[in-house]
């Protein structure tokens, strides 16, 4: 047997490739069918946010059902699919659901599968900050496709990267915390605080909102501690925090398994938690934390998620009724979760954009995407969310408090209404500023657009009083 011959032993791959060629040919012929707009919904089904799969898809499809005549195949399981979506004369087909796992490589692979294999024209998604960064980078090189971010807290997709075909109809992680620092300063009398944040982009961005807001009104951050994401044992990081008699309070930006673990570690280091000494970002009350963490911190203030749970405005009730109508019991009946709400608004905005473009895609659709939208929890400007020049939402925010309900269950109540929160925090964040990081932003006193304008919210009703 000569050596030369053996070299040609590439043999087997070929069998597979042949089979695939048939596959490929088949899928190409399928594509030739009638003209329709192809939409993909990208979310997570594995990893830390795996539970967001059905709520996200349900939120987006509730909007398709309401505004474009879609019919859920199974009202209990949104991912079963939806038929009959029509915008004007254009029919819309949901070609697939993306399954991320909160990591960048999977987000890219899934995005490619949706946009290239399933040939989606538009993506509603993704979920989570790092995924949105990678999708925004992808969007930059695919200008004919349009991306409406599902729920993501990172700043970069619409500030530093900001491609023209990426839209976000909700706030970023920093915006969600607007007003919380001012409440700490005025209501709780905090002057010096420590902050503990997950050492990754969402942690930094969310913390950036708390720091910027608290420092803007005159507070000081005396210590920043950065445990790695999902640290196994938080004891050595908690130990670095100043003890409770040396600061007025602590801001917490620790998510995933870390929220409960770090709070337990705090109790184990310094004794029982005093609710008035702790403020969390959304990790205290959303993403499953309402059941795990909230019972420990009844009375603590919490940053928001761009929604107003329990807000008694007509618009808010109408939104909740719409979701309940198409997907009753979605997300355990908690429609005020950012996962559901943000995907809903993203899909709704897309439907309006497609209407305005007359079914045209690409640049035409991007030019027609609505600059304002009547989202459920908006109050300012006649209940309109607005997009800024970077296609990023300027949105009302609602700081919350963990409360014990009459029936003994634990929930949240909206305590404040922060009108028109923009991404720049009064010029602190701009295209040329570094993205939020361990030391970014620095603690500076400055004027914020909403400073001194935060209205008290009582029992879900916005009062005329400002928080003092």
């Amino acid at each position: 047997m000569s050596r030369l011959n053996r070299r040609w032993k590439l043999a087997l791959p070929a069998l597979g490739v042949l089979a695939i060629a048939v596959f490929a040919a088949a899928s190409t012929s399928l594509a030739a069918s009638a003209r329709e707009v192809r939409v993909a919904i990208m979310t997570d089904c594995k990893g830390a946010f795996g539970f967001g799969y059905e709520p996200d898809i349900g939120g987006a499809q509730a909007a398709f059902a309401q505004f474009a005549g879609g019919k859920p195949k199974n009202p209990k399981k949104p991912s079963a699919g939806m038929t009959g979506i029509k915008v004007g004369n254009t029919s819309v087909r949901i070609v697939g659901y993306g399954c991320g796992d909160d990591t960048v490589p999977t987000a890219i692979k899934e995005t490619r599968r949706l946009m290239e294999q399933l040939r989606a024209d538009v993506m509603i998604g993704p979920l989570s900050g790092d995924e949105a960064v990678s999708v925004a980078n992808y969007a930059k090189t695919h200008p004919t496709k349009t991306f409406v971010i599902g729920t993501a807290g990172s700043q970069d997709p619409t500030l530093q990267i900001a491609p023209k075909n990426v839209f976000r109809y909700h706030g970023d992680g920093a915006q969600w915390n607007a007003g919380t620092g001012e409440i700490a300063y005025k209501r709780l009398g905090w002057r010096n605080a420590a902050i503990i944040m997950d050492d990754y982009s969402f942690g930094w961005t969310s913390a950036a909102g708390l720091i910027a807001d608290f420092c803007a009104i005159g507070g000081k951050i005396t210590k920043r501690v950065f445990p790695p994401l999902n640290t196994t044992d938080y004891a050595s990081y908690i130990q670095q925090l100043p003890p409770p008699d040396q600061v007025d309070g602590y801001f917490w930006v620790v998510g995933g398994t870390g929220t409960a673990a770090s709070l337990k570690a705090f109790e184990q280091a310094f004794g029982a938690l005093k609710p008035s000494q702790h403020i969390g970002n959304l990790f205290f009350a959303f993403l499953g934390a309402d059941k795990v963490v909230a019972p420990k911190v009844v009375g603590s203030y919490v940053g928001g998620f761009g929604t107003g749970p329990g807000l008694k405005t007509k618009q808010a009730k109408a939104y909740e009724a719409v979701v309940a109508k198409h997907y009753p019991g979605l997300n355990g009946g908690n429609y005020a979760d950012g996962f559901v709400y943000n995907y809903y608004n993203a899909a709704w905005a897309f439907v309006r954009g497609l209407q305005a473009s007359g079914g045209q895609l690409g640049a035409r659709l991007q030019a027609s995407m609505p600059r304002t939208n009547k989202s459920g929890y908006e109050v300012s400007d006649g209940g309109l969310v607005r997009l800024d020049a970077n296609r990023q939402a300027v949105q009302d925010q609602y700081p919350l408090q963990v409360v014990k309900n009459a029936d003994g269950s634990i929930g949240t109540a909206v305590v404040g209404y922060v009108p028109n929160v923009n991404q720049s925090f009064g010029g602190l964040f701009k295209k040329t500023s570094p993205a939020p990081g361990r030391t970014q932003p620095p603690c500076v006193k400055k004027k914020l657009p909403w400073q001194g304008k935060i209205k008290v919210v009582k029992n879900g009703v916005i009062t005329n009083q400002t928080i003092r």
Partner: protein
Amino acid sequence: MTGLAATKRWVERGVGLAALVLVALGPAVFNDYWADAILTQTFIVGIAAASLIFLSAYGGMISLAQTAMMGAAGFILGNMVTQSAPGGETKGLTLGWDPTLAIVLALLGTTLLGLVFGAIASRSTGIYFLMITLTYSVIGFYFVGQVTNVSGFSGISGINSYTPGFVGDMVNDRYRLYYIALGVAIVVYVLIRYVVRTPFGLALQGVRDEPVRMSSLGYAVPLHRTLAFGFAAFLASLSGVLLVWWQGQIAPGDIGLQATIDLLIVAVIGGLGRVEGAWLGALAFIVINNYIRDSWLTELLDDVRIGGSFNTIIGLVFLAIVIVSPDGLIGLWDRLWGLATGSRDPDRPAMAPSPAGQQS
């Protein structure tokens, strides 16, 4: 050599040639997604898997560090070529060096790293070697996950905009990468076939089978293992460079536990005994991952009230492959051929030699 075995060779050669012609026609035959995503990815992942199979088939070492090596090349390249933009649009060190220099340094650096890691692991064999290399992979992952200066935590993006002139524009001309990846894959295949026939390669196989005897014959056993590991790291670094061009970015998740295990799965599905299996396994794995979720199998889960998503199916499929055919699809082919012709393939390589197992 029996007539039947020769026939088998001819069949394999024929199929291989047909496959080569088919993929060489590339974009003319396949639709965009197949060419750009599935096949390009197959070539790239296949190279990394080939480096794993090379170590396993000819060195008797199952390495789980190949993903880390791939990532090392990617991170070195990413940190060196990218330039800082206002606002930290891309993260990492953003050194902005010359792309050609950066590629050379990425390949060299990774090979060096491989030699160092290889030297440390060279005294271990079998399942111990597997665990030590898994540790390397974990070290790599936590290093980039934690030292955000080099990884920006969420990764370095826009790397494919910085390519040397002789490689050309990667962003707008996607088929360029298709052919580059195909070319590199063929070169890697030929290179491995060549290396195993050199005196070094033959000695390596001797070390695999009879380490004690080779040692007493005066061969430096750890040195051979170290060099083999370095060579495999070099192959993996090639695939790392291609990977960042293909993805445009590199992130810690690229070398996480999941990615590490995925590469092992690719190699096992293909078959750890023969290098061809690398690309076959990559293709099968990528196709399964892309298509199985829309199949009726996923609905079956709900029907039988097990619940869960297509990930359960992928796990079950993988379990079935490992149980039914431990030497992968290539092994399955060998066995089917044997069944059909009633012959035993004379030169079928032993699957995954494991010295530790032999000793116990």
